[in-house]
């Protein structure tokens, strides 16, 4: 089920959350809405879900205009950042909720719930209450609950934001695998670019109530449309008027054409890579990322004078 939004505007009081936003989400793909706080990504997701109504514009699910259709009837599944568990119900009853209110036969519900609990690997907690589960388990329960009614579209609002780093990474790849099995059109909101790059087929970068760029992770990384996208998606350092990826900043020990002089301020060993922080003669700070062996062969040390030259740079015309 493809999603299409056209000309969406939404304001909360004096705050503009979405400004003439249009987007096509292809069927069966995992799409990320990526952006900083206040960019409008959550609002857009909630409008797609029907939890907010736009001031103007339309929302289509497949061929259906659902702009005025309440969330109950859109055939979507929604997962919240803080899980929104029904605290007074057991895990089993939580997952069964959507089926229970559709008055499915008891046997069918039991079977489906069991299936789902196995899928998300919390079958042993079926009779517990959400409060007795860890954050990661609760979120998996929330996912199972959303999937129980076989939605055509799955929407996740910063689903891993409330979890600690390790659990986040686990669930992230788990979500990707789940999507590869089920192929449900999925849209998730995140402010973590690494997460978006890791999981999504397509990333929609948003800032300040607008969409900045839409593309695959690679597209965005290698061909950013503007400064914002370049600095938001992937590391970046500024050399004069250009924007350079730190791993595209060459460090040379001898003066070379087009290379400027700089002093190494700090060398940070990050395991497989080394980050080198430099102070150029004009007073600006830049940083470069070099592989470990290269750092060793160049014998990079603090205080050393070297010469830096971007091998690839982007210049963006003034906005």
């Amino acid at each position: 089920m493809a999603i299409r939004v056209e000309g969406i505007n939404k304001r909360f009081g004096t705050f503009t959350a979405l400004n003439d936003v249009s987007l096509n989400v292809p069927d069966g793909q995992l799409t990320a809405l990526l952006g900083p706080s206040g960019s409008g990504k959550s609002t857009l997701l909630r409008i797609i879900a029907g939890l907010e109504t736009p001031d103007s514009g339309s929302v289509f699910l497949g061929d259906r205009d659902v702009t005025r259709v309440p969330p109950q009837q859109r055939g979507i599944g929604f997962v919240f950042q803080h899980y929104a568990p029904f605290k007074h119900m057991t895990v089993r009853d939580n997952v069964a909720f959507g089926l229970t209110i559709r008055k499915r036969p008891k046997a069918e519900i039991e079977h489906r719930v069991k299936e789902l609990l196995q899928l998300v690997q919390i079958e042993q907690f079926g009779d517990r209450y959400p409060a007795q589960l860890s954050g990661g388990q609760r979120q998996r329960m929330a996912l199972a609950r959303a999937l129980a009614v076989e939605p055509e579209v799955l929407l996740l609002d910063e689903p891993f934001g409330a979890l600690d780093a390790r659990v986040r990474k686990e669930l992230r790849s788990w979500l990707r695998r789940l999507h590869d099995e089920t192929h449900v059109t999925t849209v998730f909101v995140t402010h973590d670019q690494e997460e978006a790059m890791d999981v999504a087929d397509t990333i929609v970068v948003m800032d300040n109530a607008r969409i900045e760029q839409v593309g695959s992770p690679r597209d965005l990384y290698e061909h950013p449309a503007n400064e914002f996208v370049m600095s938001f998606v992937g590391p970046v350092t500024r050399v004069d008027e250009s924007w350079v990826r730190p791993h595209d900043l060459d460090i040379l020990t001898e003066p070379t054409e087009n290379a400027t002089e700089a002093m190494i301020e700090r060398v940070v060993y990050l395991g497989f890579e080394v980050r080198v922080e430099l102070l150029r003669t004009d007073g600006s700070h830049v940083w470069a990322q070099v592989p470990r062996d290269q750092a060793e062969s160049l014998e990079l040390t603090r205080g050393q004078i070297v010469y830096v030259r971007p091998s690839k740079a982007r210049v963006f015309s003034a906005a």
Partner: protein
Amino acid sequence: MTAASSATATGARPVGGNARRSRAVRLTVRGIVLLYLALLLLLPVAMVFIRAFEGGIGPVVQAIGRPAFQAAFWLTVQITVITVPICTVMGVVTALAIARRRFPGRAVLNALVDLPFALSPIVIGLSLFLVYGTNSPIGGFLADHGITVIFAVPGMILATIFVCLPFVIREVVPVLREIGTDQEEAAYTLGAGPVRTFWRVTLPAIRWGIVYGVILTTARSLGEFGAVAIVSGKISGKTITLTTHVQERYEAFDIVGAYTASIVLAGMALLVLVGMQLYQSGRLHRGSSDDAPSSLMLEPVSTAGSRTGGGI
């Protein structure tokens, strides 16, 4: 939210200084407080029971057997039985409107909810009298159609609802605000309509707030005196509640009768206290996953924060 009424905090930790000296201070303060509470609280209440049974059990039983007492008792119960459900249902409706809806005049509604706490019960009685008394347009209209409000039970019910109005609302609104709308939104996305969502998701989440509000409403309803005294006209046998009966017996120099009615009311008050205590300890067992209010300190509904607890 904390369990204020079940304070199980650790003992005093002397923060620096001489341990022996601080122990003496601690015992002194404890002594002062216990003495204060004994003189102000415990002794008077004990006194009522002592005075009631001064002449033995006989006179008390006799006083309870009197028709005036019985009529007053059942009238009090009748008013409470009607008031509490109305305050509960309408209280939940109002709490939902305040916590979940945006509409013009919401602040005014907030302020109106807190108003009964800022009003003397005499003033409340007077205001109802002015609206529903036979001299007024509304009262006159109702009287022409055979409905008496003032100096009759309906007026007393209205007065009791007026004074009890804030309790359920002020217990439920904070809970609604704290649990937020996430669970309800989740239910919507899963296909539940507004009514179903209320029954299956919202109501279970606020049930303890409602329970506590009902306990407070019941206590207040049983004990209401001033407002009801004004609108009832104290017509003997017809509009005398148990509280009014106490005053009436006292003024008739029937001390035993007055104290008997008092200990019945005090007994009901103690039952309410037990209810409140059970609720508190039940809360501890249910654990912090439950969103429930904990103390008598009702948060103000209005942002102007008129936090009060009006007189009976």
